[in-house]
């Protein structure tokens, strides 16, 4: 029914269109809904009745208050500031917050967990991608000794630094480190290596991955990013999850490139300590790049898990 509300000192009076008073309640007993956009307001009374009006300014005047939130939401200045805050916070979270948290968590992960994760990963890899090695035992022992020499100065890992050889025609020449200090090298890598310096560079790179817990950090980052996005945008279900997965993928690739760069830098330092030239590692990387990707080089670095080979080689040579 059409009605009109007005204030009479401490009372709220509701009148119908004829001026007859329908209700009179203490002003403080009426609860007003918060002002939101241009939506109508509602005044709720203790007896369950309510009064609705689109005259937002009138309600504010009558109740003698103005909503701070509404003022903020109506000012274009606040809106611009909010866009900035959102952008900055997202960038800070992505490039500082997540890596810092992941780093802390990885550092505090017990050795037993690193061993367990390594065992499980190795089991899976052996089942789907790796085959027993065809490299001779003497070559394996030689390489193991090289790894031992490179890792001599490094902090102890969960299981010590050991080298495992695998035949991996599906993967090609490659080497990777698992969290507990196990390094896997493929048979296919051996013919690509032209000098001991080169493989020592690879080992120094892999040792760096273990020392900095890059493998564990990757795991933590993978959980932290979705969990935080979910907490902040708990009701962003209209679009579905695709729009939030995409930045997650790009972020993970960026973190990965950061790890690879750190490992390269450590490798360069270690090689110099041993009196060797980091350019050796650059040579090997370029050789691998040419073999796997042809003359065009491997893809754009903004998508890849490793920085572009040309960049890596240049950085190693300049170190």
């Amino acid at each position: 029914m059409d009605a009109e509300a007005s204030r009479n000192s401490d009372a709220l009076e509701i009148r119908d269109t004829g001026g007859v008073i329908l209700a009179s309640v203490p002003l403080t007993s009426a609860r007003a809904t918060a002002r939101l956009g241009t939506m109508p307001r509602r005044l709720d009374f203790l007896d369950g009745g309510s009064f609705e009006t689109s005259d937002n300014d009138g309600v504010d005047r009558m109740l003698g208050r103005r909503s701070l939130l509404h003022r903020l939401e109506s000012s274009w200045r606040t809106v611009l500031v909010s866009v900035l805050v959102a952008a900055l916070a997202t960038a800070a979270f992505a490039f500082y917050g997540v890596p810092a948290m992941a780093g802390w968590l990885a550092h505090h992960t017990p050795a037993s967990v690193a061993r367990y994760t390594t065992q499980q990963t190795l089991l899976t890899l052996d089942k789907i991608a790796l085959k027993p090695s065809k490299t001779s035992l003497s070559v394996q022992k030689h390489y193991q000794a090289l790894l031992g020499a490179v890792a001599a100065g490094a902090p102890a890992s969960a299981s010590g630094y050991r080298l495992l050889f695998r035949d991996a025609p599906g993967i090609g020449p490659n080497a990777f480190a698992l969290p507990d200090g196990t390094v896997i090298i493929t048979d296919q890598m051996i013919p690509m290596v032209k000098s001991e310096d080169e493989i020592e560079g690879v080992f120094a790179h892999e040792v760096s991955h273990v020392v900095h817990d890059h493998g564990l950090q990757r795991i933590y980052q993978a959980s932290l990013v979705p969990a935080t996005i979910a907490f902040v945008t708990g009701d962003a279900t209209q679009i579905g999850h695709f729009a939030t997965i995409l930045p997650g993928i790009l972020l993970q690739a960026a973190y990965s490139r950061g790890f690879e760069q750190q490992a390269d830098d450590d490798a360069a330092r270690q090689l110099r300590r041993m009196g060797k030239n980091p350019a050796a590692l650059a040579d090997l990387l370029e050789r691998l790049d040419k073999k796997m990707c042809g003359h065009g080089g491997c893809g754009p670095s903004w998508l890849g898990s490793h920085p572009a080979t040309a960049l890596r080689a240049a950085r190693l040579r300049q170190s």
Partner: protein
Amino acid sequence: MDARVETAPQAPAIRHQLRFDGSGGEYFKIWIVNLALIIVTLGIFSAWAKVRSKRYFYGNTYLADHNFDYHGAPLRILLGRLIALGLVLGYTATIHFMPLMTFAWVIFFVFASPWLVNAALRFNARNSSYRNIRFNFEGEYWEAFGVYILWGLLAAITLFTTYPLARRARDHYNINNHTYGSRYFEAKIPGWPMYKTYLLATLIFIGGIIALGILLSAAGIAGMDFKSMNPKQPLTMLRFMLLFGGAYAMLLLTLTTFTGTRVFNLALGHTVLGDRFHFESSLSTGRMIWLVISNLALTIVTLGLFYPWAAVRIARYRCEHVAVTGPAEMDNFVSESVPAQGAIGEEVASFFDVDIGL
């Protein structure tokens, strides 16, 4: 003389179209300022932001010149969110370090989810009102268990040939346990149109996969032996992942929108309230698919800023194609006095993306 009782002539039924009055620009300002406040308060404000957001969408939805209302209390929502966050962290931590715990978590979620779903539906219903009369939800635990868990198992066992029936059981459970002013909603969805929808979706899926295969071999990638994918070869692997992954995701999005829209039309079109109010829904699947995909593209391109306009677009389209037909007087709806339910269930449920309805 016979006394003849003349029944009053039935008032002619009136058709009311829903109307949405909000605008993307207006909602953007509210949304972005709320987002900044959430960031500044490290997430605490998110409960208040959610209430404002829901009030905005409810309050701008009009039926016969009256709008809807949302009454959720932010503090309870905050409590629910904190509990949900605790569960997420606990789950993530334990499954990474004790993978065997995954089994325990699965059991936990199987038995917790019917309760969560009911709590979420109850909280939402009881905090929603139209013309000062609240809705309610009265589903019971074991009924929910049967609908969500048992029907789900049956669908899986029968290789999803019974999925349309499972979906219908869920929609019936959802709708038939909702009340407005002490009157029940009642849905009687016919089985064959449900089946037709999913059969069509399956055909589209197969067609889509074939089209994808043709697309990929044209791009020269399908010829690539999977085993020769080298992790140190970023371009080919990522190009493949992005192309195939992206196209596949689009296909899935199209399909879920297709079935979602048709099921929504079916369910709403066969729902009545208190024997006198009928609902109709005439959403076009083509238009919905276009809306969803264009919303996604624009949101990605604008780094998320388009989201408020996206939400308003969908809300407006939905309102413009949903109508209620019934007698002019809205008597007979008496408000039940029910206590406001805690938000814990709702927040935990929405966290784990429990699909709670239409």
